[in-house]
């Protein structure tokens, strides 16, 4: 009995060690002989050998064939098919870099003569510490080993050695909780158990090569194969093989010429040519402030580990070891992709504040992740996640998702010879139901069509597949497929809160047909003794414009709707969103589209129906005020966007959002809509200029840079600016024009900027006066920062600023401020001075 399975490698970095070891793990459960063939080169590997698979060097999009021969070949086939569909595409989740965009150097530093070097950021954050040089353990050459080393050890056989090291690794594995660290240790364990690796060593032993030399040779062979791979990710894996080899040699008592693990005395920035994952795992992470590597691509396991431990990391830093002296102080700023050697006091103070600020923001995000999102005036907006596989659910929930607003099921159907069985689907749907419980998961039934072909569905050739035979339209002709999916969901519903949603619905008939089908299947299952959640909700996607005008009737048939803005917009504005010539047309900010959305939401909300949105528009944080203004119950967004949207919602006032929406609906063009959005902030119109949380009554800042940073940070933490970095730039630009020192120990740094969300005053009273400008020799004791929105012209706030400016010219006012000891007192004085404005 043999079965074959073909697929295209979906991974951007090819079939590298991590997915290879997972694939091998599945294959190893079966007795059948299983091979993986890379069609392009007609090379074949034993699918149970990680190293053999990796050596195939399967690249992104390469066609592969898995062939199983033997007794349980069919089962092996099924299992591998499931793996290829469900798990393989997600092996690289933590490999992609994400938002690590480089920024120019903070402005204030450009005037200083700093000794800095640049590199590629591989992991977020700021680190401050003492430079420690570390060397990667060097890999011994075979001829050194052959000279009789390693004979004192008690280990006589390869098997004993492998078992010993396996136990050690298993022990380390049980101590690690992070998934990245565990993943890497598991990959190392897989190398140890790899049939190809073991076979190579054994054949060398049979040729009278000593055990140590055989190990070195086998590692070299595979490491070389990895190093000559096309994919940079696969090339990085050579270090993993050497790591495993070094462990084996250690246990044989072979002395390998390299320094041992680094002992860190205090906060340290590690600088090395390269570092192995094992060395990082062994290091004292509480003292590791940052990692600077001369080499090391951003996809090496070491980097993945560093990222998972949140250690600021720079790679590709040329001559780092030469340029950073051991024992000197260094700052690593991964945001800007630079490291500063021997930073002067003011630079260090600046970064210490930046680090503290980032810690506060991260803590808040974690706190927020666990709570529902509410607007400033208490309106709840559910934030859910769009997922395409069961594996994505937990990470999304950890980021703050309150459920899955869209589970795209077609991934389960692609790249197979036949549809997934009811059992297979039942397992997946139960899993998400349980993992999410009590949070809801909306499962969208199969959404396939001519543009997303599924071979076993035999789609006809179409001139316009996008306008053709797809979505719900195909169900009646493929009853077996839709029935098994519906049954799987119905059965799984017993395990949590599952909702069913149908795609591409255009008429009431389609809904009625599906509802009846569901009812019939439900009866059948109940008769067979299955328990089904009676609260199971049934709904549809709103993506075909026609259904928007059947809201009253639809509302009688469904429990909820979710707006799929991607396709809805395309059908509405008759534009292919990928079309290069007419990109601007497919913007959801088209006023007509906004009016259409409003019509849809109003119509369904009027009928008392829950309305969510799962299209890309929901993930756009610039659109959030509009969507809150529309009154949507839920936004289902892509997981990386969850934290920023959950942070945005509490900044908004739902009433003001409605006002902003009205204004946008009355705009004639996309540009006007976006300009309106930019100038409105969605806040309640009266967020006060001054608040206690932007007043520092006793600042320890010693330099002007630090004082300004302190105030900008306060504004950022109070969500008064969208972008602290740009606000700071604007403040310094104004300082450049001429100093904002105004005499008598007062300075008034200020700016007008797009970065400001709401007009604000931030205040610092310094414990000891600081120097402000070179031209004025007088020190500054009181700093009042004024931050104005760029779009504000002659508003009320402007009058307050000018009033404040005038009042500071009076000695009694100044004296009161300087002698005020608390933030409350300062707040009281300033409020009093500003209150005497008559409007």
């Amino acid at each position: 009995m043999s079965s074959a399975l073909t697929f295209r490698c979906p991974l951007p970095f090819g079939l590298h060690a991590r997915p290879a070891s997972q694939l091998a793990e599945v294959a190893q459960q079966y007795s059948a002989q299983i091979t993986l063939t890379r069609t392009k080169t007609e090379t074949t590997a034993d699918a149970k050998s990680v190293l053999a698979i990796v050596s195939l060097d399967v690249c992104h999009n390469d066609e592969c064939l898995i062939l199983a021969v033997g007794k349980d070949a069919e089962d092996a086939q099924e299992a591998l098919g499931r793996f290829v569909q469900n798990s393989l595409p997600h092996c690289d989740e933590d490999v992609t870099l994400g938002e690590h965009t480089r920024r120019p150097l903070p402005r204030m530093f450009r005037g200083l003569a700093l000794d800095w070097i640049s590199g590629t950021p591989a992991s977020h954050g700021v680190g401050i510490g003492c430079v420690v040089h570390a060397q990667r353990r060097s890999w011994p050459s075979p001829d050194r080993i052959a000279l009789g080393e390693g004979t004192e050890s008690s280990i006589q056989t390869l098997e004993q050695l492998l078992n010993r090291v396996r136990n050690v690794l298993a022990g380390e594995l049980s101590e690690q909780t992070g998934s990245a660290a565990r993943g890497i240790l598991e990959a190392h364990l897989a190398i140890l158990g790899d049939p190809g690796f073991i076979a190579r060593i054994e054949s060398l032993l049979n040729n009278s090569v000593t055990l140590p030399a055989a190990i070195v040779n086998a590692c070299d062979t595979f490491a070389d194969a990895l190093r000559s791979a096309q994919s940079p990710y696969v090339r990085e894996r050579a270090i993993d093989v050497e790591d495993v080899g070094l462990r084996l040699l250690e246990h044989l008592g072979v002395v390998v010429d390299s320094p041992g693990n680094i002992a860190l005395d205090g906060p340290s920035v590690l600088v090395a040519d390269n570092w192995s994952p094992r060395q990082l795992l062994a290091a004292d992470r509480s003292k590791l402030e940052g990692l600077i590597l001369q080499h090391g691509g951003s996809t090496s396991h070491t980097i993945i580990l560093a990222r998972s431990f949140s250690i600021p990391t720079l790679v590709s830093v040329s001559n780092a070891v030469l340029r950073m002296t051991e024992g000197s102080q260094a700052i690593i700023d991964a945001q800007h992709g630079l490291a500063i050697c021997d930073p002067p006091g003011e630079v260090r103070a600046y970064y210490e504040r930046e680090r503290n600020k980032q810690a506060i923001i991260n803590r808040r995000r974690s706190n927020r992740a666990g709570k529902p999102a509410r607007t400033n005036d208490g309106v709840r907006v559910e934030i859910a996640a769009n997922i395409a596989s069961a594996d994505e659910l937990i990470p999304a929930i950890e980021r703050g998702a309150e459920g899955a607003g869209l589970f795209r099921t077609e991934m389960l159907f692609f790249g197979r010879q036949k549809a997934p069985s009811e059992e297979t689907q039942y397992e997946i749907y139960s899993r998400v139901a349980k993992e999410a419980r009590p949070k809801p998961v909306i499962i969208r039934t199969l959404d396939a069509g001519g543009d997303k072909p599924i071979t076993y569905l035999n789609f006809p050739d179409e001139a316009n597949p996008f306008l053709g035979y797809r979505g719900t339209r195909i169900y009646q002709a493929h009853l077996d497929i839709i029935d098994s999916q519906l049954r799987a969901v119905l059965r799984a519903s017993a395990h949590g809160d599952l909702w069913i949603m149908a795609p591409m619905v255009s008429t009431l008939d389609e809904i009625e047909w599906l509802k009846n089908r569901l009812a019939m299947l439900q009866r059948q299952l109940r008769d067979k003794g299955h328990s089904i959640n009676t609260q199971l909700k049934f709904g549809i996607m709103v993506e075909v414009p026609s259904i928007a005008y059947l809201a009253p009737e639809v509302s009688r048939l469904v429990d909820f709707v979710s707006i799929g803005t991607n396709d809805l917009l395309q059908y509405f504005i008759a534009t292919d969103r990928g079309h290069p010539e007419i990109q601007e047309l497919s913007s959801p900010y088209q006023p007509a589209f906004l009016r259409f959305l409003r019509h849809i939401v109003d119509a369904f909300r009027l009928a008392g129906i829950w309305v969510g949105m799962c299209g890309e528009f929901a993930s756009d944080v610039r659109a959030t005020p509009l969507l809150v203004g529309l009154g949507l119950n839920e936004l289902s967004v892509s997981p990386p966007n969850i934290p920023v949207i959950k942070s945005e919602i509490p900044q908004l006032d739902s009433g003001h959002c409605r006002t902003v929406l009205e204004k946008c609906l009355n705009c004639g063009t996309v540009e006007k809509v976006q300009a309106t959005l930019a100038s409105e902030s969605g806040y309640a119109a009266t967020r006060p200029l001054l608040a206690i949380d932007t007043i520092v009554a006793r600042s320890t800042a010693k330099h002007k840079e630090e004082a300004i940073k302190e105030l900008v940070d306060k504004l950022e933490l109070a969500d008064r600016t969208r972008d602290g970095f740009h606000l700071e730039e604007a403040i310094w630009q104004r300082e450049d024009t001429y100093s904002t020192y105004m005499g008598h120990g007062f300075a008034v740094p200020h700016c007008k900027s797009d970065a400001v969300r709401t007009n604000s005053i931030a205040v610092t009273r310094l414990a000891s006066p600081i120097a402000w400008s070179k031209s004025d020799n007088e020190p500054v004791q009181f700093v009042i920062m004024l931050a104005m929105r760029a779009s504000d012209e002659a508003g009320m706030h402007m009058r307050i600023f000018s009033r404040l400016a005038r009042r500071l010219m009076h000695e009694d006012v100044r004296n009161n401020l300087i002698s005020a000891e608390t933030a409350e007192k300062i707040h009281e004085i300033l409020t009093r001075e500003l209150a005497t404005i008559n409007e």
Partner: protein
Amino acid sequence: MKIVAVTACPTGIAHTYMAAEQLEKTAKALGHDIKVETQGAMGIENELSESDIDSAEIVIFAVGIDVEQRERFDGKKIVSVEVQQAIKDPKQVFEGLKN
């Protein structure tokens, strides 16, 4: 002395008004009669009329940018100072008028 003045600072937020306040305060203390027009983020406030300018003996510009509608002051004696100076040492500004 009857004096008119214009204050204008690049960003228009703070210094324009601080300078105006200083000039007004100091002029009053020295016994002068002053009217100060501010050209700031709120636009032109306390605008100087033709008669204000005609009856003034001297014009003070405490500005860091060009004065708007400068034609109004054609033919008048104008003393220009930096905005900073008006803020930090307004007395000096008035001393300078004696020349």
